[in-house]
């Protein structure tokens, strides 16, 4: 899951860098800002394309802090990095929150915030800031950084807490307890469903004749009954009666359930 989240986060960084680059160009920020945006976008794309290398590089999770530090340092050297691509820094903190511990997230936030404030201190007077007065913008960026980190940590904490309490929920549903949706509870706790779920699919499929098994196998391979009839050189009503017999013997309610039992028996 960490790799999937990392991939999503890198895509977000790449998209943010690319759009910020376009916005910087449109706003007349100059070729330097555009170049910085191109570099960030290319780095993001490379990281996504070679996700295996990226994951290896970031495996010692502290390296996310290193990346945040490099970004912050770039902002101090050229404030355009912080001004035009501040969202990239926020996205780095968000990725850290989704794949790292809270301590790493706090470090990433501290480094990014320090970089932003240092850039402000060094270049503050010569910069046209974003919409709003200067104090609001600085506060807004710090809130943005903190909010991204907090949102990521909150989501992971939500998932962990949910999974921790999930067994009780599942047991309550299985035993016919209170449910969110009555129909779903019926489906989950219905005796028929539990009986079939508990039964060994190989045992059930073994009760079928060779002819019935042949028909079910064709249906599992994606044939419709008419095609199965053609493949087996038998009539369509014969196929239908074999399906009905197979369902009766296995207790399957629907054709899909019958086919699922067959597929499970094949894999087992």
């Amino acid at each position, binding site marked *: 899951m960490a790799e999937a989240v990392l991939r999503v986060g890198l895509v977000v960084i790449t998209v943010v860098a690319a759009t910020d680059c376009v916005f910087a160009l449109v706003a007349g920020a100059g070729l330097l800002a555009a170049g910085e945006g191109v570099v960030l976008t290319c780095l993001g794309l490379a990281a996504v394309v070679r996700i295996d290398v990226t994951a290896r590089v970031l495996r010692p999770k*502290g390296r996310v802090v290193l990346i945040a530090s490099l970004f912050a340092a770039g902002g101090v050297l050229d404030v355009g990095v912080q001004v035009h691509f501040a969202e990239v820094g926020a996205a780095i903190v968000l990725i850290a929150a989704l794949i790292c511990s809270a301590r790493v997230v706090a470090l990433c936030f501290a480094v990014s915030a320090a970089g932003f404030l240092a850039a402000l201190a060094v270049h503050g007077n010569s910069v*046209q800031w974003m919409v709003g007065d200067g104090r609001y913008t600085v506060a807004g960026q710090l809130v943005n950084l903190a909010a991204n980190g907090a949102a990521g940590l909150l989501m992971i904490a939500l998932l962990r807490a949910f999974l921790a309490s999930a067994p009780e929920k599942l047991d309550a549903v299985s035993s016919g307890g209170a449910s969110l949706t009555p129909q779903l509870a019926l489906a989950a706790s219905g005796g028929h469903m539990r009986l079939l779920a508990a039964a060994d699919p190989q045992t059930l499929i073994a009760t079928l004749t060779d002819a019935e098994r042949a028909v079910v196998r064709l249906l599992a391979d994606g044939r419709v009954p008419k095609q199965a009839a053609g493949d087996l050189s038998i009539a369509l009503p014969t196929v239908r009666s074999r399906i009905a017999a197979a369902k009766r013997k296995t207790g399957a309610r629907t054709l899909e359930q019958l086919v*699922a039992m067959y597929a499970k028996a094949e894999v087992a």
Partner: protein
Amino acid sequence: MPDLIRTRSPAPAEQALTLTRDRTGAELVHLAEALWVRIIRVGFAILIVGCALALVLGTLARGSPSVATSLFVGVAAVFGFAGLMRSHSAYLRLRSRCALQIAPAAFAALAVLLDGPDSPCWWIALPLLWIGAAVCSTMSLAIGSAAVTGVAFLAGTLLGGEALIGRQDAGVLPAAVGLTVYTLLACVLIDGFAGLVLGRRGRGRPARQPTQGPVRLTNLAARMAPATKPARAQPATQRDLRSPSRLTARQLEVTLLLHDGLQQNEIAASLGISLRQVERLVAAARERCGAATTSHLVAMLAGGALEGERPSSGCAAITR
């Protein structure tokens, strides 16, 4: 040097895998619904915070909140509090129809359009889009709604007589794009979490090796290629299976209930959605996996051919 940075344990994924083993599809769908309700409850809480932010920041930016801002924020706050109190009912109601699924985004678009330039209602638009992402059947619906809201934000700024960009300043463009980007991120994360709970990670089986008996390989290129890179899947023939495709959480929900033996109208009643939505989800799932029929799709799920990870070597799919 002491290791001050502790790595995060991969507990959620493994925890989910242990939890979902040997559970019926209906049980997992029930669990996923509980997760979605919890997510939407957080969305309503953030909406209330967003209402406060919109009022405060609107006052900072404009001196006092406009009538339009107050009206939209008021309605959003009522919706937020009502949703927080009755999260499950709100979830079921919003899920039931496509029109209701995009209703939060429609309200957000209206708010940012009518509230004037650089609308503070952006702060309620974002959580409304997240709520929409939690109830939408498809990701394209959620992201499309977010894109429309972003365009409405820009249109509201233009209609208010302000320029979209300033001197060396991207102006409101990042805020407009941010609505779509954050919604995309929310969609992906929610789908990922729900997929974990539905046992998507555990749906794969190791591919049978070519030497292990009389099997017919559908991906001959994978069989012949050296095992250094992941094999590319060949185009599917009618009886072949495409390389394993990743179903979305909503598609996996419906497929699991089909696997359990529910009919489509029963699935619609169980999930509180329309039959048409179920049909669309099943059709989309079949297309994603390259399944010729619904039975084929369920057989792929039961046989473990729906794993999302690429095969490291050998076959993309095997049929006897």
